[in-house]
Every structure is written in C-alpha cells, then in structure tokens.
C-alpha cells in the first residue's frame, strides 16, 4: 500500500514544552486514520504540521510524496479546524463561495461542489441564512462542507463530530467511509471518542506528545487482550 502521509521522527517544542516527541506515522492512501488521545496530547499540533501550517523542529513530513510545507500541495489537502472558522456576518452560501474561491475553483465547478457538499451535510435549505443564526451543529457541518469544497485527496478533520447529534454523526461517518471506499480519499481524523476510533482502518494513540501504540482497532484489541479501545489506551499507556 502506498503512503499518502508519512511523518518521520518529528519533534516540536513550544517554549519549554515538548508538544511532540519523535513521532513516526505512516498513513496509507485510501484509508481512514484515527489519531486518538486526550485533549492536549498534541493531536492538533501534529495535524497542523501535516496541513502545512506548522513546521516541525525536527524530522520531516511528506504528503502525497512531496515534502511539507508546500503551498501547491495545500490545494489537495482539505482541513477542518477544531474551532469553527466561519464568517458570521455572511450566509452559509457566501462562506462556501469565499473558501471555494481561495482554491481557485471555476464558477461552474464551484457551483457543483457547493451543491454537493451542502447536500452532504444537510445544509442545502439553510444556505441563505446568516451563519450567526446557525446552531452549533450547523456551524460544525458548514465547516465540514468547507473542508470538502475543493475535492481534496487528503482530508484532515480535527475533532469533526464534536457537538453534532448522533444521527448526523452517523451520517457523516458513513459519508467519510463512502469517500474512502468509492473515491479512494485518505482521511485523517482526530477524536477522543473511542467508538469513532472503531470505525477507522488504523489508529494511533497519542499521549503527552508521543505515540504509545498504532495498529488497526481489532489488532490492537487482540494484542493487548482488551475488550475495547479504552482498555487498549490504558494498557498501552502503562508500558
């Protein structure tokens, strides 16, 4: 299997804190990869480095065979931040249009993508409303739609399902799996919800800036002879 993202021996410090310590990750193309760990474990920092917004102090990161950070590669990476980065004075449609224009989509193409992503997150009826009137879940869905807008090959979602109701969470996950299976997208998801981790092809558990274990959910459970991923996390952390 070809690697869509490879992280080699990456370390990052902020002032005196070691946020990441010698992280190695190999993420296969066309898979859903979960980064699991408590808040403050360094997931977001790692994800930002893969997106190209941060530079590692040590080590290197390659995405789709090219070294990051790389501006032209950003075109092929979709990113959804942990907090909703939306323009509240604009309508949902205007937000989509704006972010679409950043990726230099042609107007016809942009129209199609906007319809597609709005449909995907069930927002097509609310696109004309201002974002300031949206509920928390709707904002989250709009952020997700924006991450898809340029039809990226690699999709990086930082805590995508926080504050979304279970039904919608399920439909988003189904869509992520469909994107993986039918379109061969590589999807990286951070989460601290263990039952979401079950849906990933492969997961990496992060604690205090270091990876404590990696593998597919079933393999991990077997290796640590645990019933669920929570136990795996606890057992792996002890070693």
């Amino acid at each position, binding site marked *: 299997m070809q690697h869509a993202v490879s992280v080699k021996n990456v370390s990052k410090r902020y002032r005196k804190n070691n946020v990441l310590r010698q992280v190695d990750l190999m993420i296969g193309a066309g898979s859903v990869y979960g980064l699991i760990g408590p808040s403050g474990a360094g997931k977001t920092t790692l994800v930002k480095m893969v*997106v*190209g*917004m*941060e*530079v590692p102090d040590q080590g290197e990161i390659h995405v789709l065979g090219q070294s990051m*950070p*790389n*501006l*032209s590669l*950003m*075109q092929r*990476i979709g*990113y959804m*931040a942990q*907090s*909703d*980065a*939306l*323009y*509240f004075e604009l309508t949902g449609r205007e937000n989509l249009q704006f*972010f679409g224009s*950043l*990726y230099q989509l042609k107007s016809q193409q942009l129209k199609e993508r906007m319809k597609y992503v709005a449909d995907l997150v069930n927002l097509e009826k609310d696109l004309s409303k201002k974002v300031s009137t949206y509920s928390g879940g709707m904002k989250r869905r709009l952020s997700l739609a*924006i991450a898809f807008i340029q039809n990226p090959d690699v999709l990086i979602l930082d805590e995508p399902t926080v504050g979304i109701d279970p039904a919608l969470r399920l439909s988003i996950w189904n869509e992520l799996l469909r994107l993986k299976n039918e379109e061969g997208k590589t999807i990286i998801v951070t989460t601290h919800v263990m039952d979401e981790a079950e849906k990933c092809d492969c997961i990496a558990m992060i604690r205090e800036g270091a990876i404590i274990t990696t593998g597919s959910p079933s393999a991990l459970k077997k290796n640590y002879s645990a019933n669920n991923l929570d136990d795996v996390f606890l057992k792996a952390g002890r070693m």
Partner: protein
Amino acid sequence: MRRIFKQMFRDKRTLALLFVAPLFILTLMHLLFNSEQVDPLLGIEGADDSFINKLEAKNIEVQTYTNVKNAHATVVDDELDGFLKMDDEKQQLTLLNSDPTVSRTLEMNIKQITSKMQIPDQMQKSLNQEDSTVAISYVYGDEDTAFFDRLGPLLIGFFVFFFVFLISGIGLLKERTTGTLERLMASPVKRGEIVAAYLIGFGIFALLQTIIVVFFAVNVLQMILIGSIWNVLLINLLLALVALSLGILLSAFAESEFQMMQFIPIVVIPQIFFSGIIPLEGMADWLQVLAKIMPLYYAGDALQSVMYEGLGLADITGDLYVLLLFACILIILNLFGLKKYRKL
C-alpha cells in the same frame, strides 16, 4: 466585585493602561504646552534704531534688509514671520500668517509702537488706533484667517488615520479570534495575497471616507482649500494606507476588541500633538525627533501645505515619500507577522 478585581489583575495590560496611559498623555501634553515660545522673526527695511530697540523689547527678533523688491518672496525664502517696510509716512507689513496667532502678535506690537511714535505730531489719529497707517498684506490666508483654518487640514488627516486604523485593526482581529485567519492559512493562498486583499478591501472604504470627509469639509464647512483637491485626496489615501497596515499589524498584539482600543491612547493620541497642531519649533529637541517618526506629522505638514498654503505636488513629494516608506515598512512587517499562522 471580587471577580472584577481578579479579572483586572489577570489582564496586566488593561491594568497598566489604566494607570500608566493617563500619566503618559499628561506628561506629553505638559512637555508640549510648556515648550518654549519661539520669538517671531521680523524682517525690516528703513527703520531707525530706536524703533528696532522697541521691537526687540517686545521679544521680536529683527533682521534688517535693504532694497527688498518682493516682500512675499523674502518672507517665504528667509522663513520670516513678517516683513515691515517703513517709509516716511506709511508702513507696509507683510505677514507669513502660517500661524495666525504669531501674526496677530506681530501686528499688534507693530501697531502699538508706530501709533505711539505718531502721538506727538498726529494727536488726532491716536484717538482711533484702528486707523493706523500700517498697511497689511498676507502671504497665506487673510485677516479673517482663524485658528480653525490652520487646524482643519490636520483634523481631516487625523480622522482619516484614526478611523481607518480602528476599522482595519478590528477587522483583522476578528479574523484572528474566530480562527478564520488560521483557516485561510490552511488554504493555498499566499501571505502576500492576504495582506494585499486586506489593503485593497479596506483601502476602498478608506478612499470613500476620505472623499466624503474632504468634500464635506471644503464644500459644506467652507474650509480653506487653496491647493488642488486631488493632492489632498492623494495625501489622505497614503495616510490611510499607513493607518491600514498599522492597524493590521497591531491587531496581532491584541487579543480582544478592548485591547485594540487600548492602542488609541498609545498610538493615536500622541500623533495628534505632533501633527502640527502645536508648533514644533518650540519643542525640546528629543520631542522634535519623536515627531519625525509619526506618520501624521508628515501628512499634517503636507495637508497644510496644500490646503492652507496652496503649494503644489512638487512641494509635498518629500512628505509623500515618507508616508509611502511608512506604509512599505508596515506591510513588510505584516508579511512577517502572518508567519505566526503559517511558516510558508
């Protein structure tokens, strides 16, 4: 109440500002308003020594001339505040009038001295001092020139600077706090593109504001405008550009709109004092140096030159270049400032 105390102590900047900023501004005003009064400089032709002595007793510096053909040119070239030509019967006074208060002082003193000298032989005239034999002409403005005519151009510049600074600063601050700026940085747009888009976007609003302010001041308030209105717009546009880039830059150092407002006493108010509202010549040397790093000083100088003194584009290029330089430096700093969000 205890919570207010706690919050205040956490926000060191607000606390510092609360106590330090008023002292800072008061000190500045103290220094400025207590600066030495510069003695007016009067050029004179055909006066006797006793007359000159009387002038000097009134703290007027006197420079003697002979055979001056063009009083206006002499006043402008030699940076005199006025020029007095005395013949047997009549006196011709030419006033620079770049500062109406200086002109008033000169005029009053000269009238007093000449009328006293006339008392012995012209008793009847002394009864009516207004009927003095001094004929007055003005290089800039006229006898009705009020303080506001000189102040007006500076105020236009100040308001353009102030509002553009605030609006652009708060605009970008919002992008920073809502995370949209960070999100922009996760897309392939270049940092230069973001800065440029900001400058152009807000620049258009700044341009509109400038046009409205200038037209209102000139046409409705009848503010004095001798030079070209295009030059006024050009100066204000450059000033707006400086304010824009300064606002964008400083928004990086603010975490909330409130902290953005805190820059007003530090960044904006001192500029008013140095914009030329108070004559610079009387200030201490180090204060004059300070004035030279204020964008509003150059804009104020240029605006006064055009609106009040009626000078053309060639006379204000120096000021314009300095403003442009300010803008360029701030824009480059902005490009580096955005590195905080993305290293590339």
